[in-house]
C-alpha cells in the first residue's frame, strides 16, 4: 500500500489503515513522515486525556470505564496503551487489553498497545503521531495510558490536554514518594479503589498538599473512583470536560497545542541534524578515526565531539 492510499483510507475511517499507519509511525523514517504531512491538516479536533500512575493502581480499568462512559455519550474513542520494552531483548508483553475485553469489538473503539521501545518518560516515541493518526481518523476522544509510572514519567503532559494522575489507598508514604514527581502534572487527581481502607485519608492528604501548593486558577480536583465497578467514573468524566472548558476559555488549549507542535519541530530538526552529521562523519572516515583514538585513550569524548562537529557539522561554518 502506498502512502497516498494509506492516508486516504485512514481518513475514510478504515481501521486497518489506522493500524498500519501506527506501525509505520512506530518504525519511524521517511514514509511515516510523508504520511503525517498528508494527514496533519485533518488533526486538532480530538480531546486528548492522559492517564498515569504507579503500576497496579488500576489505570487500564479506569481507561476501560471511561471508554464505556464515552461510548454511552455516543463519542468515538481511541485508546493508546503503553507498556515497557525489555531493555535487554527489545521485546515486550503488552497486556493492557486484558482489562478492556468488552470494548475491543465495539466498532467505534480502537485500542492500540504501544511498546515504549527504549523511550524514557513513560511513553513511546510514537505516541504524539499516533494520537494525531487517531485524531485524523475521526476519534472524538483519545485516552493515553502510560507505563506504570514513578516519579519521572511526566512526558504524558506534553501530549494530553488533561492529565489524570491515578493513586490508590494503602501506600502509607506514597504521597511523600511521588509528590515531587507525577503529582505535579495532574490536572485531576484520581483516588481509585476508593472502597479500600484509607481512601478518605489519602483524599485529605492530597487536599492538604494542594493547599500548600501555589495559587492557580485551576486547582486539581481530587476524585474518588472504584473503576472495577464503574463507580465515580461519570463524575470524573464531567471533571475532565470541565477542565477542557477551562483550557479553552483561558487560551491554555491553544498554548498547549502550540508548545507540543513547536517542540516536535525542535526534535525533528535535532534528529535530522544528528543523522546528517553522523552519516557524513562515517562516510568520510572521521567516525572510525575518532573511535580508534578513543580506544587508544588518546582522545576524550568532548574533544571527539568537537572534532566531528567542526569537520562535518555546523561549527565548521560558524567558526
Amino acid at each position: 500500500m502506498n502512502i497516498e492510499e494509506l492516508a486516504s483510507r485512514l481518513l475514510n475511517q478504515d481501521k486497518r489503515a489506522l493500524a498500519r499507519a501506527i506501525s509505520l509511525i512506530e518504525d519511524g523514517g521517511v514514509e511515516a513522515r510523508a504520511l503525517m504531512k498528508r494527514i496533519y491538516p485533518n488533526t486538532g479536533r480530538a480531546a486528548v486525556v492522559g492517564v498515569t500512575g504507579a503500576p497496579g493502581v488500576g489505570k487500564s480499568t479506569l481507561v476501560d470505564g471511561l471508554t464505556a462512559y464515552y461510548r454511552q455519550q455516543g463519542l468515538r474513542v481511541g485508546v493508546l496503551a503503553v507498556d515497557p520494552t525489555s531493555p535487554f531483548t527489545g521485546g515486550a508483553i503488552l497486556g493492557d487489553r486484558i482489562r478492556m475485553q468488552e470494548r475491543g469489538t465495539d466498532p467505534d473503539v480502537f485500542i492500540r498497545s504501544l511498546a515504549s521501545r527504549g523511550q524514557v518518560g513513560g511513553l513511546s516515541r510514537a505516541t504524539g503521531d499516533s494520537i494525531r493518526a487517531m485524531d485524523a481518523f475521526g476519534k472524538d476522544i483519545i485516552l493515553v495510558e502510560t507505563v506504570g509510572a514513578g516519579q519521572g514519567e511526566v512526558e504524558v503532559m506534553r501530549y494530553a490536554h488533561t492529565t489524570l494522575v491515578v493513586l490508590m489507598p494503602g501506600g502509607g508514604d506514597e504521597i511523600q514518594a511521588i509528590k515531587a514527581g507525577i503529582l505535579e502534572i495532574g490536572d485531576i487527581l484520581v483516588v481509585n479503589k476508593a472502597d479500600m481502607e484509607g481512601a478518605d485519608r489519602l483524599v485529605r492528604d492530597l487536599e492538604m498538599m494542594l493547599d500548600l501548593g501555589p495559587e492557580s486558577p485551576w486547582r486539581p480536583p481530587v476524585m474518588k473512583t472504584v473503576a472495577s465497578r464503574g463507580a465515580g467514573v461519570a463524575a470524573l468524566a464531567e471533571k475532565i470536560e470541565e477542565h477542557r472548558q477551562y483550557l479553552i476559555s483561558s487560551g491554555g488549549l491553544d498554548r498547549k497545542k502550540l508548545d507540543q507542535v513547536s517542540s516536535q519541530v525542535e526534535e525533528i530538526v535535532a534528529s535530522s541534524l544528528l543523522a546528517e552529521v553522523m552519516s557524513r562523519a562515517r562516510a568520510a572516515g572521521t567516525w572510525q578515526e575518532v573511535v580508534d583514538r578513543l580506544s587508544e585513550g588518546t582522545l576524550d569524548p568532548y574533544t571527539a565531539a568537537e572534532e566531528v562537529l567542526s569537520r562535518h557539522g555546523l561549527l565548521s561554518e560558524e567558526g
Partner: protein
Amino acid sequence: MERTIRVLVGKPGLDGHDRGAKVVARAYRDAGMEVIYTGLHQTPEQIVQAAVQEDVDVVALSILSGAHNTLVPKVIEGLKREGLDDVLVLVGGIIPEEDVEFLKKAGVAGVFGPGTPTSEIIEFTRENVKRK
C-alpha cells in the same frame, strides 16, 4: 532496521488455563518480539478485532478445551474478512493428531503440542512470518 515482529497470544474459548500461553508469551518477548496478550475467555471476534487494531504479524492461539475445530476456523474466517490474509496463524495446546490436518487445511501454519520447546516455536515463527 528490521521491523519488530508483533504477536497476538490469545486464548479463545472457555478453558481457564493460561500457563502455556504465558510461557509462550514470555518466550516471544525474550526473543525480542512484541506480544499483545489478550487474556482468557476470548471470543473469536475479540481476537480478530485485536489482531486488526494491533496490526500483528502473528496470531498464536492456545486452546486446551478441545473446541479447536470450531474456534480456529472462526478466527481464520474473521481475519480473512478483515483483509488480514498475511497473518501467520499458529495453534498450541492439546490437539489430537487427526485434527492437525484439518486445522492446517483451514489455514493454520503450525500446530504445537504440549512439551514443544519454546525455541522451536520462536524459530518457526521467525521463518514463516509473511510480512517482512
